[in-house]
């Protein structure tokens, strides 16, 4: 009985993640359109796109790794999600969180990108290859402030368990965003890098690489990637909500907090041009890294 | 047959048949006399027309007569009224032939109209002669139309 409940919980998590993910993306498309003086598509447009893509057949074959790429990507997204507790407490949506899950997440979050990189590299399209190399370079860029921010939190809370970090933020004043704003800033800038919205969309830059890694992928592959993207977006947002906004005790709270967090990359994405690759990496290594180090110092000093 | 001793419809028809036969013979003679191919063609047509009328009369169903005759309005362009009355022996050309035919039809109309007046008391005969008069009037109009279209092409 318990097992059944757990398993159904996993599926529920995936369902919620997917739904919230595409709704958020739809929301982003509408907001972007409105700022751009357009009406924009309906909020469920991404769902329609995914359904359409899944219904297509793909005639191109670049070898096994091309099939595996999107599969890796979706696997990584789901796995990441599985190790993120969606709600602070209660029995539902806890998934596989365990002691030290934060360290595990640091690795597993990159896994999807690596899988994609393998798949895209297989296609032989130079645009994909360059996109992949840029993407990996950018990971190198934003991982540093991200790790610094996480380190600050781990040091502060003396734990590597996400659950415990969540539990520690028991009141609004106890939220890490207020307790350690520098870590939040470093983390959110790294988060901008993770979302691949402008100014950090060099891997995909249409004007340069014609969308980069996914350029040889269409139909079901693209559908898989979009599905993966929806789930991964939710996973990341949930992670950040858990880390800095004290998690959520119910789904509604989670949605509100996640949306608030999501607005930051969306808004910045609307109004900024793209950094060049080296500008982006230098940027990550400069401001957010300094802020990240400062946040650790701050924690050390506070303690 | 004399007009005086027409007593019945059958006799009246017989009378009319004789008139048509006379006309037929006249055109036959003209065909022989005419040199102009167009005139010759016209007289042949007229002869055949009269022959057709004669046949129509010969096979006329007396009982159903009243319902069958034509009721449409007949125009009168009055061309024949003012055409020179040609004698048969003078007629050689196409124009003269047409003039003769138009005048003849007109006269036939007048003749039948008169007969209709005379036999006003006899409903059957009156009806027959009226119809014949109307027929002849329509033939006159046909002739006038032909005259209008050919001789009067530029008039």
């Amino acid at each position, binding site marked *: 009985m318990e097992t059944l409940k757990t398993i159904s919980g996993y599926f529920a998590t995936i369902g919620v993640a997917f739904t919230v993910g595409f709704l958020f993306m739809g929301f982003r498309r509408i907001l972007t359109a409105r700022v*751009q003086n357009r009406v924009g598509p309906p909020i469920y447009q991404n769902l329609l796109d995914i359904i359409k893509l899944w219904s297509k057949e793909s005639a191109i074959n670049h070898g096994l790794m091309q099939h595996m790429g999107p599969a890796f990507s979706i696997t990584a997204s789901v796995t990441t999600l599985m190790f993120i507790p969606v709600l602070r407490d209660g029995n539902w949506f806890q998934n596989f969180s365990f002691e030290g899950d934060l360290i595990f997440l640091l690795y597993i979050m990159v896994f999807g990108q690596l899988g994609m990189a393998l798949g895209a590299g297989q296609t032989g399209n130079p645009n994909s*290859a360059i996109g992949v190399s840029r993407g990996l370079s950018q990971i190198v860029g934003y991982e540093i402030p991200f790790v610094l921010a996480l380190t600050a939190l781990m040091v502060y809370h003396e734990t590597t368990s996400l659950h415990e970090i969540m539990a520690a933020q028991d009141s609004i004043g106890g939220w890490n965003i207020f307790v350690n704003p520098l870590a939040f800033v470093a983390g959110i800038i790294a988060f901008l890098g993770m979302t691949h919205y*402008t100014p950090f969309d060099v891997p995909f*830059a249409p004007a340069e690489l014609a969308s980069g890694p996914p350029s040889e992928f269409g139909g079901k592959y693209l559908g898989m990637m979009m599905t993966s993207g929806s789930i991964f977006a939710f996973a990341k947002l949930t992670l950040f909500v858990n880390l800095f906004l004290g998690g959520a005790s119910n789904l509604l709270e989670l949605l509100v907090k996640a949306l608030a967090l999501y607005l930051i990359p969306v808004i910045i994405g609307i109004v*900024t041009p*793209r*950094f*060049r*690759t080296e500008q982006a990496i230098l940027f990550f290594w400069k401001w957010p890294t300094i802020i990240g180090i400062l946040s650790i110092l701050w924690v050390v000093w506070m303690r | 047959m004399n007009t005086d001793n027409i007593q019945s419809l059958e006799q009246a028809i017989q009378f009319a048949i004789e008139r048509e036969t006379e006309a037929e013979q006249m055109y036959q003679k003209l065909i022989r006399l005419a040199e102009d191919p167009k005139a010759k063609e016209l007289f042949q047509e007229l002869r055949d027309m009269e022959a057709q009328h004669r046949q129509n009369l010969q096979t006329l169903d007396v009982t159903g007569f009243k319902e069958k005759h034509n009721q449409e309005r007949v125009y009168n362009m009055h061309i024949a009224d003012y055409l020179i009355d040609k004698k048969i022996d003078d007629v050689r050309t196409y124009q003269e032939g047409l003039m003769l035919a138009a005048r003849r039809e007109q006269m036939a109309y007048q003749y039948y109209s008169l007969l209709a007046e005379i036999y006003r008391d006899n409903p059957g005969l009156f009806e027959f002669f009226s119809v014949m008069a109307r027929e002849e009037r329509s033939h006159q109009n046909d002739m006038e139309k032909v005259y209008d279209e050919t001789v009067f092409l530029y008039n």
Partner: protein
Amino acid sequence: MREKETTLYLGPQHPGITGNMMVKLKVTGDTIVRAETHVGYLHRGFEKLMEVRNWMQVFPIVCRICVPEPDPNEENLARAIEILEGREVPERAQYIRVMVLELARLASYLLWFGGQSGSAGLYTMPQWSVGDRDYILDLFEELTGGRVYHMYIWAGGVRRDLPEGFADKVLRVMDYLEKRLKHYDNLMLDNSIFQKRAQGVGVIDREKALDWGIVGPPLRGCGFKHDVRIDDPYLVYDKLQFEVPTETGCDVWARALVRRREFEQSISIIRQIMEKMPGGEFYNKVPNPLHWKVPAGDVYVKTESARGEFGYYVVSDGSDKPRRVHVRGPAYVHGITLLEHLLQGANLADVSFIMNSLGTCPPEMER
């Protein structure tokens, strides 16, 4: 040790290219070692086509030589024929032509605003400027019946008179665009990241700019005050007041500022035109187009297009077809020789960025 070179084909179908052309890039990492422009994907050899079309049939062809700004082509051809024929153009038609040319310049610059920002990833800007350009296209639609290809200016004048109430509509659009410029500044030109991307990128060698035959905003961005409208006024430009802005940076940023300031000047020119527009005839009718012959002779005419001096060399042998129409488009210099030169050593990310700043117009190279 030589790094491994990757060959990248930018185009002929590519979101970052300004039309159907290809830039073949040899890249090491993100740096371009060599760039080669390849054209031939777009048009059918218009100059040659014109030699087998009669004079009137040439007008629907020339406007296709530049998609974003077809009118200088029409005006050039019309003016060349008028000079050869000695045909007078009614004054009203001349004013209408200037209005059309300046509206086309605005439309072209709006498209540039979009292209320049879009190639840098600022996707909001193209949506704005292309949307705003549509208000100008609406004006064109009302005036000429066509939105993009107008086929409106032809020998002897213009094709139709202004529709009723057109002047008011033009002025309303001008007021609107002026207001929008502030938003454009906020989003694009004041934007730190845009400035970072544009400054010091695509620098033209000022010493060689004139020798290379660079014209228009790229030349004015190098500090040369060169503008056909001032140097060799045509139509009624000598009766209008306007400035020719210059910048000294020689880079993408300087060219952007030049265009931004010229945008204001064009608005002012259009306002003057609407004020001074005389009445009267708009068309001095040409003979039956099916056998219209233009006297023998040759003539070079030029117009200041949004990309710079736009010249037509027209030769007539006195027959009903042009003997030769040579189009001297600025994009030929900017898009091939200059672009190839500027791309050497540039960052891959800047290829279409530089391309846009030069006003590269593939149909014009490939006429």
